[in-house]
């Protein structure tokens, strides 16, 4: 289960121990920030195609494990209404050494942003709203 409607507890996420042969674990924590492209953001709404989002994240996790040789990757992405400062997504990657853990963690979050059917609507200070349209340079994560 990679998608949750519940608040993400960072302490619980970090506390889970990786396999004992892993010497390095990296974490990424994505939070709701209060601005975007010069506008003040009040809150966000994340929507997903749930069944497909779960499958796509699983594929990303499996692919990155096989490409980077990390031993374990965990992902939790929250959906629904989030306030400024709330945690939207957490990723952890654990490997024997730190190099593969850093690489895997970066790969996972970039691929989530590219390929997982999750959408984000921003609500601004004046209560206007806009769906965020992201563009990515695929070469940036190669």
């Amino acid at each position, binding site marked *: 289960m990679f998608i949750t409607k519940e608040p993400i507890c960072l302490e619980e996420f970090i506390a889970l121990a990786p396999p004992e042969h892993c010497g390095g674990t990296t974490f990424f924590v*994505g939070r709701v920030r209060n601005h975007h492209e010069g506008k003040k953001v009040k809150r966000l709404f*994340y*929507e*997903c*195609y749930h*069944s*497909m*989002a779960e*499958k796509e994240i699983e594929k990303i996790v499996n692919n990155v494990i096989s490409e980077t040789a990390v031993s374990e990757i965990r992902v939790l*992405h929250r959906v629904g209404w989030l306030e400024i400062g709330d945690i*939207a*997504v957490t990723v952890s990657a654990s490997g024997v050494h730190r190099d593969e853990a850093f690489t895997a963690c970066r790969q996972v*979050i970039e691929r*989530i*942003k*590219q*390929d*997982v*059917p*999750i*959408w*984000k*609507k921003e609500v601004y200070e004046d209560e206007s709203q806009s*769906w*965020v*349209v*992201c*563009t990515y340079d695929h070469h940036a994560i190669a």
Partner: protein
Amino acid sequence: MKIRIYYFAQLREKKGKNEEWRDFPKSCTVGEAAKAILEELKEPQIFSLPFRYALNSEFVLPDQEIRAGDELAILSPVAGG
């Protein structure tokens, strides 16, 4: 043939619904079905969005043929993370 269409995000709001069953002729492709659905919005600028398509929860290309009972989602640009 009937297929099930799912709408998300901008499209869900513009359509005013999460999903619907629609009739399409046999040997219709994903791209043809999506074009017909998007044209109903009468917002030509919507075609500037780089839509992707999912059939039965898997990414597919626009030339993929649809079968009766398939579930089609027209995916506007994603923005997770």
